[in-house]
C-alpha cells in the first residue's frame, strides 16, 4: 500500500485486488462506503474494475498510480485522494486497510440462504437452469450479448438491462429472437413489468388493461405509476431499449411487443412511449395499428405530435399520454382538454405564489434561472420540451432541439437541465437513482448561485432505486434552506415523485417528507416543468 503521485491538492493512494470481479452494484456499495468516510479527509475516490477505459478515466481524474499498470480487467482498483496531513502517511495507510477490510466483508456477506429456486455462483452458467422462460441480464455489456444469445438458443425470452452492447449484436440478437418468436427487451432496457412483476427499475403498480411499450425506462416508470395512481392498471409494460426504434434495428422488439398486446386478451389500450422513431419504423408502427385496440403514443420531441395518424392518438408528454390511455381504459373517451386545463390552472396558481415569494424574499436581487438536477434520462428530455425556452436561454448535457449543449456538464449556465445519470457523472460512481450524494452536492452548489430562482428535482422510486431516499435528502434540503435564510434569499424547490404507495419506499411517505422540508411536490414531471416554466416566464 504505497502513497504516490501528488496532485494539486491531497495525496493519491490506492490498491489493486487481483482477480476480484465485482458487479456494478457492489462497486456502488463500496464507493458509497468510501464516500461515507468523508470525515477521514477523502477528497475524491474511484472504485472500478481495471478495464482500459476505466484506467484512462483514472488518469484523467488524477487518480492514477503506477502500480495500476499491471492490473488486468478482472482486477479491482481502488484509488482515493486524501488531504495531506503533516506529511504523515500512516493515516491514509490505515484508511486503505479499513477500506480493504470493508471490501472483504462485502465479499463474505453473500449468505447462502436459498431464496430463489437455486443459487448458483460463477460464470457462464447453464441458462437451461430450472427451465427459465425469461433471462434478466445485467452483467457488463461485453459479456451480456453472449449470455443473451445462449438464452435465446435455449428458447428463453431476454431482458437486457446491460448497456454498452454493440449495435450489431443488438441487431443479431433481435433477428434471431424474431425468428424464434421470442422477445428481447433491451439492451439498455431499464424497466419492464411483466404480469405485475417489476423487472429491474420498475414500480409496484395496479394490474389492469393498459399495455405499455416503451423505448425509455424512466418514461415507462412515469406512465405506469401515473396510470396506477389515477386508478387505472397495467397489463404489462414491455421495454425495448432506446435503440430499437432506430433504422438499424428497425423496431423489431417494439413491433413484436405491439403484436403481443394486440393478441393479449387482457390488454384493451396500448400506450407507446419513446423518442421519435425513425420514419421507416414509424411507418411500420402505423401499419401495425389496425384499430381493434386503441393506441396512444408519446414520441417525445416529435414535430406536431398532437394529432392522429392511422388510428394512433399522439400526445406531447408523458402525463397527457398516461391520462389519455387511462381515460380510454375506463371508457371515458380520449378527450383530456378539461383535465389539462385544470392542471394548467393549478400550476399557474402555484407559480403565482412562488413568484411572489421569490420577489419578496430576494430584495435587490433578480434571480431568474432554473436548474433541473435529474436522475431520470427521459425526464431531462421532457422537461426541455415542456419548458420550451429560447435555445440560447436553456442548456443541457443532453440537449434537445430546444436547447444548447452545456460546455461542462458540471457547471450550470442560465437555465440548465442536467442528466446526472450520464456517463460523465457515473464512471466508477453509483447512479444518482441509487445514491443521491452527487445530486446533493450539486444542489448545494446551485443554491449558492444568486441567479437561481427555481430548482427541479426528480425522485424515482420503486425496485432498483434508492431504498431509503429520504435518509440523506432531508438534511441536505434543510442545509439548503438554512443557507438561503442566512443570505435572506428564497429559491423555489420543486420535486416530482415517481412511484406508488405500494412501492417499497411508499410514495406517500416520500411526498410528505419532502413537503415538510419546504419542497413543492408535484405528481408528474410534466406538472413540475409547467410550474417551473410559469415561475420563470412570470
Amino acid at each position, binding site marked *: 500500500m504505497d502513497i504516490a503521485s501528488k496532485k494539486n491538492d491531497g495525496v493519491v493512494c490506492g490498491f489493486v485486488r487481483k482477480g476480484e470481479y465485482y458487479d456494478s452494484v457492489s462497486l456502488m456499495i463500496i464507493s458509497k462506503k468510501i464516500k461515507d468516510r468523508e470525515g477521514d479527509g477523502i477528497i475524491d475516490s474511484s472504485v472500478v474494475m481495471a478495464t482500459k477505459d476505466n484506467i484512462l478515466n483514472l488518469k484523467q481524474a488524477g487518480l492514477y498510480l503506477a502500480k495500476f499498470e499491471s492490473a488486468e480487467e478482472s482486477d479491482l482498483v481502488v484509488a482515493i485522494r486524501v488531504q495531506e496531513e503533516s506529511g504523515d502517511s500512516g493515516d491514509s495507510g490505515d484508511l486503505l486497510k479499513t477500506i480493504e477490510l470493508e471490501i472483504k466483508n462485502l465479499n463474505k456477506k453473500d449468505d447462502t440462504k436459498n431464496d430463489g429456486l437455486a443459487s448458483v455462483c460463477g460464470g457462464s452458467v447453464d441458462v437451461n437452469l430450472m427451465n427459465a422462460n425469461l433471462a434478466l441480464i445485467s452483467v457488463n455489456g461485453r459479456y451480456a450479448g453472449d449470455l443473451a444469445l445462449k438464452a435465446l438458443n435455449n428458447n428463453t425470452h431476454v431482458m437486457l438491462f446491460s448497456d454498452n452492447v454493440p449495435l450489431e449484436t443488438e441487431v443479431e440478437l433481435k433477428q434471431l429472437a424474431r425468428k424464434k418468436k421470442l422477445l428481447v427487451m433491451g439492451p439498455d432496457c431499464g424497466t419492464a413489468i411483466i*404480469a405485475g412483476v417489476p423487472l429491474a427499475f420498475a414500480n409496484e403498480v395496479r394490474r389492469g388493461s393498459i399495455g405499455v411499450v416503451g423505448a425509455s425506462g424512466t418514461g415507462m416508470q412515469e406512465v405506469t405509476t401515473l396510470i396506477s395512481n389515477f386508478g387505472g392498471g397495467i397489463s404489462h409494460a414491455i421495454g425495448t431499449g432506446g435503440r430499437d426504434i432506430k433504422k438499424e434495428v428497425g423496431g423489431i422488439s417494439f413491433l413484436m411487443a405491439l403484436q403481443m398486446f394486440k393478441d393479449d386478451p387482457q390488454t384493451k389500450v396500448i400506450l407507446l412511449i419513446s423518442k421519435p422513431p425513425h420514419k421507416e419504423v414509424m411507418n411500420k408502427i402505423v401499419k401495425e395499428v389496425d384499430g381493434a385496440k386503441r393506441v396512444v403514443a408519446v414520441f417525445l420531441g416529435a414535430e406536431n405530435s398532437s394529432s392522429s395518424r392511422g388510428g394512433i392518438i399522439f400526445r406531447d408528454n408523458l402525463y397527457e399520454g398516461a391520462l389519455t390511455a387511462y381515460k380510454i381504459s375506463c371508457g371515458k373517451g380520449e378527450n383530456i382538454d378539461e383535465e389539462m386545463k385544470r392542471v394548467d390552472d393549478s400550476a399557474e396558481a402555484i407559480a403565482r405564489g412562488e413568484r411572489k415569494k421569490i420577489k419578496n424574499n430576494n430584495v435587490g436581487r433578480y434571480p431568474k434561472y432554473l436548474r433541473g438536477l435529474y436522475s431520470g434520462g427521459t425526464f431531462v428530455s421532457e422537461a426541455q420540451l415542456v419548458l420550451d425556452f429560447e435555445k440560447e436561454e436553456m442548456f443541457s448535457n443532453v440537449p434537445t432541439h430546444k436547447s444548447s449543449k452545456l460546455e461542462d456538464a458540471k457547471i450550470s449556465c442560465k437555465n440548465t437541465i442536467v442528466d446526472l445519470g450520464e456517463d460523465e457523472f457515473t464512471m466508477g460512481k453509483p447512479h444518482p437513482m441509487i445514491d443521491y450524494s452527487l445530486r446533493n452536492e450539486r444542489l448545494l452548489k446551485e443554491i449558492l448561485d444568486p441567479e437561481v430562482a427555481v430548482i427541479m428535482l426528480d425522485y424515482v422510486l420503486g425496485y432498483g432505486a434508492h431504498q431509503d431516499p429520504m435518509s440523506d435528502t432531508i438534511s441536505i434540503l434543510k442545509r439548503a434552506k438554512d443557507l438561503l435564510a442566512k443570505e435572506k434569499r428564497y429559491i423555489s424547490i420543486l420535486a416530482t415523485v415517481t412511484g406508488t404507495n405500494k412501492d417499497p419506499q411508499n410514495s406517500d411517505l416520500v411526498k410528505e417528507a419532502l413537503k415538510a422540508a419546504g419542497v413543492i411536490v408535484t405528481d408528474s414531471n410534466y406538472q413540475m416543468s409547467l410550474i417551473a416554466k410559469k415561475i420563470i416566464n412570470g
Partner: protein
Amino acid sequence: MNMANTNINTNINTNINTNILTGDLKIINFGLKSFTDAFKGRSNVSWAHVDFKPPLISDPALFKIIDEKRELIESANQEVVKRISSGRPFLVAAARAIDAIPGMQANTILHAGPPVEWSKMCGPMRGAVIGAMLYEKMARTPEEAEILASKGSVKFSPCHEHKAVGPMAGIISPSMPVFIIKNEEYGNYAYATMNEGLGKVLRYGAYDESVLERLNWMEKTLFPVMKRTIEAMSGKIDLKNIISQALHMGDEVHNRNRAATSLFYRQLAPIICKVSNAEDAFQVLNFINGNDHFFLNLSMAAAKATLDAASDVKYSSIVTIMARNGTEFGIKVSGIGSGSEKNWFTGEAPIPDALFFPGYSREDANPDIGDSAITETLGVGGFAMASAPSIVQFVGGKVADALKYTLSMYEITASENSAFQIPYLNFRGAPMGIDLIKVIEKNILPVINTGVAHRLPGIGQVGAGVLNAPTEPFKKAFIKFVEVISE
C-alpha cells in the same frame, strides 16, 4: 423446456411466444442480485440468481476452436472420468525410495510441485533439503549442505515426475522408506513417504536433531514393521475403500484424516502385533495413533495412482495434476501430455488467506506448498469440504461455507464420483474431473484446503485455510490446449 412454443409457424408476425405474459414467470437473473428483491413474495414468479463473473479468457476465436472440437473433447473427458472413477488404488508394499521409485539415483532429492532450482526454493523447502542431506549423510553440517546444493551436486526433481507425491516440501531422499500403491485396475504404481506427524518436521523445513532422530526411527523401526505387515496382508489394503468410508465419517482426506487414519490403524493393528515384537508394535501403533495425518500421504498416493492412469488422453481437458513448490503453482492436463516430464503450466503460488495460529500472521506465511492438492484433483479435499464440517471452523468458515465450496466445484468438474459420497448432499458423488475449459469459462478456480507453512525453515505450520488456485496456470494451459487440439 416446459414451454408452449411447439407450434411451428412460418409467419413471423404471429404466434409470438407469449408464455411470459400468460403463464408463470421463471426468471434466471444474471448480474445484479438486488433485482431479485422485486420477486419475493409473489406467487407467479420463481427465480434463480447467478453471480456472474467474466470468463478468464474471452477471446471468441479460441472458443470457436473449442466449439468445433466439442464432441472430441467430450468423449475424451468421458474416457478420463471413467478411468478416474474406476481406479482401484491398493497399498501393496513398502520399500526404500531408491529401490522403488523410478529414476531415483543416489544423489536425487525429490520435491513437491513443479520443477524448481535451489536458488528459487522457498524457506521451508530449503530447510527440508538440508535436513534430507544431513539424514542421508550427504553433508555434515547445514552450511555444507547449502553449499553442495547450490553447487549442483544434488539432483532435484519433482516427485510428480517419478510417480510420487509428498506433502508440503514433499522431500523424498534415497534412503527414506516409501509406501508403494498400485492401481489394480490399470497396473500403474505411485509412491509416497510415511507421514512424520505434526510439530517440528522435515516437510515444514525443520532439520534439527529431533527431526533427524525421528527420520532414523522411521527407517529403522516403522519401515520394517510396515513392510512386514503389508506383506502379511498380501498387499490387500484397499485405500479407495478407506477414503470412501472416511468421507462418511467427517474426513475430506486432505486437511482432516482422523477417520481414515483410524480405519487404517484398525485394519493394520492386529497384523502389526503379529509380525513385530511387542516393543516395536507398541512404538509403531503409538506413533500412528498420535498422528491424525498419518493417512494423508496414503490418500495423496492413492489419488496419484488413480489420476496417473488418466494421463495422456488426447483431446481431454481434464486436469490430472495440481501441485505447488512454495514458489510456483503448477498444473498438468490430460490432453496436453500430462504423462510426460514436461508440460507443466505454472504461475506464482498464492499466499493462503488463512486462519493463523496465535502469534502468527499473513506476514509469516509461505506461499502455498505441497503435492497434497492432488487430493483436490481427484475430487476430495476442498472439493469434498461438505463432508468435513468439523474442520470448516479451523479453516475460518461456517458449515454453510463448506457446502458452498463443494457445490461450486460441481460447476467446473466433468462428472461425479459415486465411490466418494457426501452424506450431507444425500450421498451425491463428490465433484470429479476438473475441466480446464469450465474453469476458464466460468472463472471459478479449484478450492484447495491447505496447511500454511512458516516462510522460514524449521518453524512448521502456522495456520490453515482454504484458497483458490491461481488463474495463471489455467490460462496458460487453456491457450496451449486450444493449440494442441487444433493441430
